[in-house]
Each structure stands twice: as C-alpha cells, then as structure tokens.
C-alpha cells in the first residue's frame, strides 16, 4: 500500500480539533490497550496533532512531524513500523518462515502456508480483519504490519491463499518517510 509512497501523495495536512483528537486517542487506546500508559507521551494532549490525508483514503497521524499511526478509510489505526519496533508487545504477532521474508519485504501479501509451516507461528484468537505485526523466523523485530483477511483459526484450517494483507513493510515508502513537513 505504501510501496511508492512519497510526500507528494499527501493531499492535505490539518491540525485536527480537540474532539477529533480525543476520538483518535480513544480508538488507538481501544485497539492497543497495552499502549495506553504511554499514550500521553506519544500523543501529548497539549501539543497539536496533525492528520495528513493521502491518496487512496489513507490517513496518517502525525505528531511533531513524525508519522506515528495510519489508517485506511474508517479502518483501525495501525502503528508505523518504527513505532512498533519501540513497543513490540502492543500487537498480536504472526511469524512467517524464512522463505517468505524476501517476498514480504517486496510488498507481497502474506500467504497462509508461510504462517503455518514449521518456521511460522500464529498468535491464538486473532479475528479476521484485525491488525497484526508480522515477525519473521529467527528475527527479533517486526518486518511488516498486516491486516488479517482470515482469523487465525481459519488460516490454519484453510492453509491456502492470502491470510494477511500487507499494509506496511520495511523499506516501503512510509518507512522511508521519516518526517513530514
């Protein structure tokens, strides 16, 4: 999704009003309860929160010129990989086997067999249509952020086709966008 993301794709940046800011904080806190204690540090109530609208209905939540979260249309907010690397425990994790890393880093969606093979692992009770962190066999850090198409159970049962949509991965356009101005 962010394969060719550049600053030019941002069609408008707005400092959002307090009520919208509250709403965003709330939905992030709901989605990632573990993040709540430090949410005040990430998104201080006082400093202005900026939402950047991009093409294809993508919104970036920007604080101090650093993109922290993104969402698509009205979907859930997802942290950027740099943020996830700092707080790796906040998301449910799927692990892909070593053979899949190359493709995931090229932007491919995550196929079920890569998750169910011996190198892969699934967190239990992940529903369909939920954000997950994609880890890799033998690596410590996440390599992508995905949005599940099937629940963890179904991935195991069906074991075929796309299991997780790849939203954001290492070295894609958003990763390279360190700061916005």
């Amino acid at each position, binding site marked *: 999704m962010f394969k060719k993301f550049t600053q030019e794709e941002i*069609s408008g940046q707005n400092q959002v009003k307090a009520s919208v800011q509250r709403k965003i904080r709330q939905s992030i806190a709901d989605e990632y309860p*573990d*993040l*709540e*204690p*430090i949410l005040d540090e990430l998104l201080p109530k006082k400093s202005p929160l900026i939402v950047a609208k991009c*093409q294809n*209905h993508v919104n970036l939540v920007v604080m101090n010129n650093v993109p922290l979260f993104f969402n698509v249309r009205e979907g859930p907010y997802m942290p950027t990989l740099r943020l996830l*690397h*700092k*707080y*790796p*425990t*906040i998301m449910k994790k799927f692990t892909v086997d070593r053979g899949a*890393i*190359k493709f995931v*880093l*090229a932007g491919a969606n995550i196929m079920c067999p890569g998750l169910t093979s011996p190198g892969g692992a699934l967190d239990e009770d992940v529903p369909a249509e939920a954000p997950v962190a994609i880890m*890799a066999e033998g*690596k*410590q*850090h996440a*390599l992508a952020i995905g949005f599940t198409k099937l629940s963890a159970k179904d991935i195991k049962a069906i074991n075929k086709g796309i299991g997780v949509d790849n939203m954001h991965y*290492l*070295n894609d356009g958003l*990763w*390279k966008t360190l700061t916005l101005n």
Partner: protein
Amino acid sequence: MAEKLKPVEVLYCAVCSLPAEYCEFGPDFEKCKPWLIKNAPELYPALVKEESERAAEQLNGLDISSGPGRTEAGSSTSEHKVDEEVKTLPGGKVKKKEKPEVVVEKVVRNKRKCVTIVKGLDMFGIKLSDASKKFGKKFASGASVVKGPTDKEQIDVQGDFMYDIVDFIAETWKNVPGSSIYILEDGKKVPAG
C-alpha cells in the same frame, strides 16, 4: 497506571535504514556489509568469518576461491525483484470479449481529483442513462455517459468511488454477478470482492 513500557532500542543499519538483522534482505546487502561487520558482527557471523578470511588471504597472498562464495550467492538473488515495471496496456484493452464483464477504473486528473470509469454495464442489458443517474444520486456527484475509445459507451463518475461502486453495482443490479466485476489497478485487472 500499569508499568510503563520501555521503548526498545533497535539497531538500524546506517546504509539501508533497515533493522540490521534484515540487511541481508535489503536493497543492497553488499553495501551494508562493511557497516554490519563494524556494528553488528554478532548478527552475521558468516560475514565476519568471510571478512577475516579475506584479510588473511591478502596477508598471505593466497588465492582461495571456495571460501567466500556462499554468502554472496544468497545476496544476489534479491536484486532482480526490482525490475517490476508494469507494461502499459499491451494493446489488449479493447479486445472483443464475449464474456460480459464490468470493469471499474480510476483515472486521476489534476493530481488529487479523480474520475471513476465504469465500462461494460451495457452488456448486462442495463440502460446506461438510467445507471448514470443512479450513480449520480448515490454518490452525490456528476455522472455521465461518455463515448469511450472505439465507440464503447462508458459511465464517468466524478470522484474516487472505486470500492464503493463495486458494492453498489452488485446491489443494484442483481443480474450482474459479483464475479464478473473487475477493478483495473495499474493496468492489471483484479476481481473485485
């Protein structure tokens, strides 16, 4: 308040910006190698070994060809994924198709303004003028029947409704099966939902 999460420090490669452990899958592993050997030797023991071997080679003036071969073979495979340029419409856009299908396409004009183009609705026996009126009403925007390339009639809807319009078509005209609705994304036809 629960215990505070401590931010984890991640070692990022200075060359390719990926976390050091992913350098081997990065765009240019070769260039990262010197940095890795200096900063993250524990992650790539093979590399360090190779480097010291090479240093030993230089010292001794020996000619070894078998030693450093294996890590280099691994890195070169990642290179040919870059040339993924999409060929622009290989003439096949207007081929006479027997199978009726609806193609939804988005055309960007003026950077951030789009037009959603729906083709092929007439093949299902739908009156295009009626359809355009329905689109206009649903999406609160201009929708008109336009003569497309080679006299095919199509509907232009102002705005980006690529995904919404698919649902709307499937809902409004029951005789259009969802499986014959396609979305045209950078020259590729993708079956919609």
